[in-house]
């Protein structure tokens, strides 16, 4: 190893004074960086160097084999998603409060509520309907025929048969299923049934107006089978005769569903207001 007192140092002045030259050079470099313009020029180099260093410290081979890096990445993704959703939750709560106030101001009758049941899907059955699910909640749990089923993404179907401890749900993907729907933005109404490709098909389209591309499709609430505003999916494409719908429920999990009641609004003549005949005759006499 060459040393300051060695032969090599006497022969090569660069080596002898290298230390001091390096110190002077580094001081000059530090002083030059006090100039903002030069600092801006240096920043891309720093970024590139940082990227390279980060690249070196990426998950090790052991982490990759054991799957630890993938899990860590997934956790980070989920944490970011939770943070994002927390903002939406706060926004949704605020909006819900505002909606409640507006409905109160307008004296509006909102969607009727009722007892809800969360049920686990036990099996897909081959019953009378091609697309049916068997849920582990029945009459003893308060489930009644006509309840609609929803998962974390959207409408799943409607309860068509109820046992004591189980119920059969007709999925909206079934060909026999009919769901009155509407476009969220266009407001157009249509009837949706299940296609063979697992997508929804819209029929009875209005003569005027068209569903918008990628528009969300919600239940319209007409007919009283489903409440208004439950997410069904979004428009995938449109042909001359029908509109295809990507069903939201397929993107979520189907292990658990929420069974909710649909309160049927009866016609006035079916449940007339009972008035006292004597009062009526008195009013007629006066």
């Amino acid at each position: 190893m060459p040393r300051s007192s060695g032969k090599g140092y006497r022969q090569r002045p660069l080596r002898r004074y290298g230390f001091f030259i390096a110190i002077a050079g580094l001081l000059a470099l530090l002083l030059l960086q006090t100039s903002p313009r030069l600092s801006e020029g240096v920043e891309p180099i720093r970024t590139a160097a940082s990227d390279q260093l980060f690249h070196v410290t990426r998950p090790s081979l052991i982490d990759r084999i054991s799957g630890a890096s993938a899990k860590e990445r997934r956790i980070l993704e989920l944490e970011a998603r939770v943070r994002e959703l927390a903002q939406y939750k706060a926004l949704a709560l605020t909006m819900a409060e505002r909606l409640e106030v507006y409905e109160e101001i307008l004296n509006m009758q909102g969607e009727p509520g009722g007892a809800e049941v969360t049920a686990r899907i036990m099996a897909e059955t081959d019953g009378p309907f091609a697309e049916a699910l068997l849920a582990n909640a029945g009459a003893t749990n308060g489930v009644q025929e006509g309840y609609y089923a929803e998962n974390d993404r959207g409408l799943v179907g409607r309860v068509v048969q109820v046992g004591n401890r189980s119920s059969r749900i007709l999925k909206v993907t079934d060909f026999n299923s009919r769901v009155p729907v509407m476009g969220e933005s266009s407001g157009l109404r249509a009837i949706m049934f299940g296609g063979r490709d697992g997508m929804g098909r819209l029929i009875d389209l209005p003569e005027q107006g068209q569903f918008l591309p990628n528009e969300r499709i919600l239940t319209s609430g007409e007919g009283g089978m489903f409440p208004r505003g439950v997410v069904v999916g979004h428009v995938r494409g449109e042909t001359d005769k029908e509109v295809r719908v990507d069903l939201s429920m397929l993107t979520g999990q189907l292990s658990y569903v929420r069974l909710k009641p649909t309160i049927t609004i009866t016609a006035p003549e079916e449940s007339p207001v009972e008035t006292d005949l004597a009062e009526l005759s008195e009013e007629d006499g006066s």
Partner: protein
Amino acid sequence: MNGLSAIPDWFALRWANARPRSRLVIGALVVALIGLIGLTPKSFFGVPLAWPYVGLSAAGGWGRSGRGFGPMVFLLLFGFAQDASQAPWGSHALANLLTYGFSAMVTQMADTERTPLLSFALPVVTLFFGIALVWLTASISSGHLVRITPMLTAYFATLVVHMLISPLFNLRARRVGGGVSV
């Protein structure tokens, strides 16, 4: 068992007979390895760990063998690698080189080999000098005095690591039969 117990002796003999250039490369590899591990997140049961300034450790260790061109080049490279994160370019390299020069100067001035107390105190002082330089550079570049506590924890971490790996920075090759060759 004899075979196993002979392994450290074999390594010691190999290290004793290793040429300065080989020692320099091995020391540099150790510094690079510790530095790279230091780039990854480090915590112990959720408590963040202070990581040593292993470049300063190498500077102090190599400096005890006198000034040379090879160690300087490595110290410059390590310094620039450390600067890649946030520090102004050249700040860590300057601290490394000055620590190296300081260590070499003190070793040249005092007979550290024959004075055990000095031999123990030299790395303590040298590394403190290096950490103080880093703190000073950081304070000047940021325009205010930066926090001392993280620097002190890093200093103690550096000191502990230096005591463990300092033999790897000894560039003086000993030939069998005594004598130091350079």
